């Protein structure tokens, strides 16, 4: 305790130097915590948007569908939709059917991806359908269609117009059916807006000659963290149907997952550089402090302190510096996170249109989310770095020869 007291007093010998070092360390910690929480919030929003528009947090496919995307890998969900819907933590179960085809108006024709959906379930979840009422969406077996805005323009259609969809049915025959533009949707992603065509799932399945079948059963969870708990339960439900396979969103949407990983890795790299610079700063402070007290350390050794005790003193100074920086940095980091969560960063002033990343459109106002475990972890890591920074100065202090130090002026 006395040693900590002495270390504390030693820290404030050079008040300005200690304050500058503290500011550098705590500011870095604030930046790392704040920017990580911002990324965490943006990634969470992207994942949420991605899973709701895409595969869900968990998804059920015929075994090879995820790799081949071949429409022949369809299956009848039977009781699965109800059974999965009853699992704890599941918000919605979305059966979907995807069929490549050709949409023809009287003037133009375009390649499309006909997506058969259950509007009732989809409307609550799918961000593409945000703001649309159930009446604006296709019924399960009706001829209404929701069309992507670019596709509508390219086909030179207007709401209410009719058009024909042609696709290959399961038995290899070309089949056509007429649909009517019921609503128009703009996702912000060019490719999707050029090819999106939502129709009732049952109508699409009958057209493709696979009535009652689907290709994807997207499971959206109330909380992303529930994935670990729901996944094994889902697998248990599938154990009697070995041709079906449950995947997490990271496997089903590798583009989004990899884009996030890459972005996170690059920010981690910047964090590492920042922490390295801070560590060098702390080493400099501690080393200067040791060298300035060369004679005093000689006196302390002369009156009976061991080299080990002197090293512990240097570590105690680094520890206290680290603790103060950890507390200050975490307070500032929390304030920054709070601001970034409450106000966020509005990117609409910097760029036009919607923001797309990893195949997902997300909110142009970036907002942070609290990642407490990471904040604690990085705060303690900063403390550890302060102690690591003390190794060389402590070794140096321990090597001081008292007789030599006492001659030092």
């Amino acid at each position, binding site marked *: 305790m006395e040693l900590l007291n*002495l270390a504390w*007093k030693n820290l404030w010998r050079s008040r300005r130097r200690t304050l500058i070092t503290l500011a550098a360390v705590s500011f870095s910690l604030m930046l790392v915590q704040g920017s990580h929480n911002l990324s965490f919030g943006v990634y969470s929003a992207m994942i949420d948007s991605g899973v709701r528009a895409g595969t869900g947090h968990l998804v059920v496919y015929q075994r090879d569908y995820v790799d081949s995307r071949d429409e022949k890998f369809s299956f009848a969900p039977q009781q699965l939709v109800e059974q999965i819907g009853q699992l704890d933590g599941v918000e919605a179960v979305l059966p979907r059917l995807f069929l490549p085809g050709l949409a023809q108006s009287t003037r133009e024709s375009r390649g499309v991806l006909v997506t058969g959906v259950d509007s009732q379930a989809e409307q609550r979840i799918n961000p593409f359908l945000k703001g649309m009422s159930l009446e604006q969406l296709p019924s399960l077996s009706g001829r209404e269609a929701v069309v992507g805005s670019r596709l509508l323009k390219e086909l030179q259609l207007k709401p209410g117009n009719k058009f024909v969809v042609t696709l290959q049915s399961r038995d290899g025959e070309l089949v056509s059916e007429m649909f009517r533009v019921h609503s128009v949707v703009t996702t912000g992603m060019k490719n999707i807006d050029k090819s999106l065509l939502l129709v009732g799932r049952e109508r699409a399945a009958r057209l493709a000659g696979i009535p009652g079948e689907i290709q994807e059963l997207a499971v959206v969870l109330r909380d992303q963290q529930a994935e670990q708990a729901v996944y094994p339960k889902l697998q248990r439900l599938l154990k009697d149907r070995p041709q079906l396979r449950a995947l997490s969103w990271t496997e089903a949407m590798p583009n989004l997952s990899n884009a996030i990983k890459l972005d996170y890795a690059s920010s981690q790299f910047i964090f590492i550089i920042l922490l390295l610079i801070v560590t060098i700063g702390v080493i400099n402070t501690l080393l200067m402090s040791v060298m300035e007290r060369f004679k005093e350390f000689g006196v302390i050794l*002369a009156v009976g302190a061991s*080299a080990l005790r002197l090293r512990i003193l240097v570590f105690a100074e680094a520890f206290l510096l680290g603790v103060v920086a950890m507390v200050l940095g975490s307070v500032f980091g929390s304030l920054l996170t709070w601001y970034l969560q409450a106000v966020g960063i509005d990117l609409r002033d910097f760029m036009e249109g919607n923001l797309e990343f990893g195949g997902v459109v997300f909110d142009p106002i970036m907002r942070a989310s609290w990642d407490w475990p990471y904040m604690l972890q990085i705060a303690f890591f900063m403390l550890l770095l302060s102690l690591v920074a003390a190794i060389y100065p402590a070794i140096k202090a321990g090597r001081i020869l008292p*007789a030599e130090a006492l001659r030092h002026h």
Partner: protein
Amino acid sequence: MSLIELKSVSKIYPLGNQQVVAVANLSLKIKAGEFTVLAGPSGSGKTTLLNLIGCLDQPSEGEVWLDGHNVGKEEAKQLAKLRLNKIGFIFQSYNLIPVLTAAENAEFTLMLLGIDKVKRRQRIVELFAELGLQGLEDRNPSDLSGGQQQRVAIARAMAAQPAVILADEPTASLDLQTSEDLLALMQRLNETQGVTFVFSSHDPLVISHARRVVSLRDGCLESDR
């Protein structure tokens, strides 16, 4: 039996390609309770000899014995223990730790010995009373005069009741009156408490107070009277 015994001790320092002989083949015995001055001009080897006795340095040749311990044979850790338990140091420029108060400086060795705070403070109160430092316990060294700082240094040296107190030119930074007072104080401590003092000094005042004067010249023993 001698408290301190030097047997044919030499200390040689390398200086570039040359070697400087600071102490040459010196033998000396100091008994407990002595009040001895190592006298001699600058460069005569006084401080080197004091460093050897004080376990701050080890001899190049010969043996230095302190209270039954062969200093030259001990490990650094053991030497630190010896310094803590057997030796008190007083330096020319006081060398108090500036961030500690007078009392904290004085009890520093007791803290190193692991003695609890209450007992430490009790001992310091007694010492401060004896050394005329009452009321200065909570002052910082920078708020004390040179004489007061040296008294605090004496308190630090005496706190752990060492076998010997080594004082390197203790009056060199003090005025005549303060030097006189301090020497009288140390003499009293020697006479009443039997504290062994070994000084290094070329100050005639210090030499005049000594009961034994060991004169050195060029690292060799010139006289012992």
